[in-house]
């Protein structure tokens, strides 16, 4: 069927020999993109590692202000969303449209939950003057915690790293929600099947990477 123009599947573009080659090319492109994403985040992990090795006691003290319950909850939410995305691909491969759509919607809802929890975390910090950069000015008392106690040299750097890393990660979650909206609409229209589900596969790969970044951010920022 490789050279036939009349009876090739609708999704197969002319410059590919087969659906299989098209799928492999798209997926390899996605992995290359994921490596650039890993390198983007690794720059921030380097900043974390350098400041942490220089001022370990400041990082230990400052991380007390982050809420490990909220961070742990968000870890479970993202793991669940990775699970639903993997299930979605399983159903796409089995031509189960209903299973695919349900799992894509669940993934979207988990992503939304993650950002809502993050919103409450950020506002709780902002209320006490914990901002990234020059605006850093911890003050006030809540739940027996005197925030002014945490205004030590280099605490500002810890929270700048926290806000930049979780902020850029959060932006990726937002992008993921946009992608899953797009994929869900296409799935409802019945555009995917076991013959063609490349966009579902690649959005899934992207989403798993967002999950992996958080898997490292959670213990490093909240628990250590």
């Amino acid at each position, binding site marked *: 069927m490789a050279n036939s123009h009349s009876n090739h599947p609708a999704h197969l573009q002319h410059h590919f020999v087969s659906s299989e080659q098209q799928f492999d090319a798209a997926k390899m492109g996605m992995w290359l993109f994921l*490596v650039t994403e*890993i390198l983007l985040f690794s720059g921030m992990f*380097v900043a974390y590692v350098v400041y942490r090795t220089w001022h370990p006691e400041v990082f230990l003290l400052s991380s007390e202000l982050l809420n490990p319950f909220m961070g742990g909850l968000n870890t479970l939410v993202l793991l*669940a969303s990775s699970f639903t995305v*993997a*299930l979605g691909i399983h159903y796409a491969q089995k031509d189960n449209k209903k299973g695919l759509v349900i799992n894509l919607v669940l993934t979207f809802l988990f992503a939304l939950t993650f950002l809502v929890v993050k919103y409450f975390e950020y506002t709780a910090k902002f209320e006490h003057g914990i901002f990234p950069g020059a605006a850093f000015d911890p003050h006030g008392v809540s739940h027996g915690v005197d925030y002014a106690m945490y205004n030590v040299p280099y605490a500002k750097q810890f929270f700048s790293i926290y806000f930049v890393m979780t902020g850029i990660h959060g932006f990726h979650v937002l992008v993921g929600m946009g992608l899953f909206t797009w994929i869900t609409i296409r799935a409802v229209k019945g555009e995917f099947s076991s013959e063609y589900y490349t966009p579902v596969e690649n959005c899934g790969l992207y989403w798993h990477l967002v999950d992996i970044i958080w*898997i490292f951010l959670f*213990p490093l920022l909240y628990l250590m």
Partner: protein
Amino acid sequence: MSHAEHHISSIKTLTIVFGGLVFLTVLTVLTAQLDLGAFNVPLALAIATTKAALVVVIFMALKWDNKVNTAIFGIGILFVIVFISFTLFDTLNRGDLTNTTKGTVQDQQIQAEKLQAQEPDASAIQFNRTPQ
């Protein structure tokens, strides 16, 4: 069509991996409560790496995928390791190069002795001490 080649992970496999990831999350929260001294961070990183490996190998299906994708991912990780370790070669050893400022080592020793005379408690001149 060669779609039979695409690996389909069973729901059972995916569920077991999800359960494992939840278990490891609980484990990392619990072990963080223990005071293991210098081992807290390596342990947390080991658990996080195990979780990431489960996601990459099973959820992202690298185990059954075209080997070129494993190579791309592996090279990416290799460069992250180079990035972090070579930066640390610099930043962890900067204290050894304090005499790169203006003035000689002798000048600096005289300066340090003057400071010591003003403030006998050595711990008090550490600029990054934690508050009592």
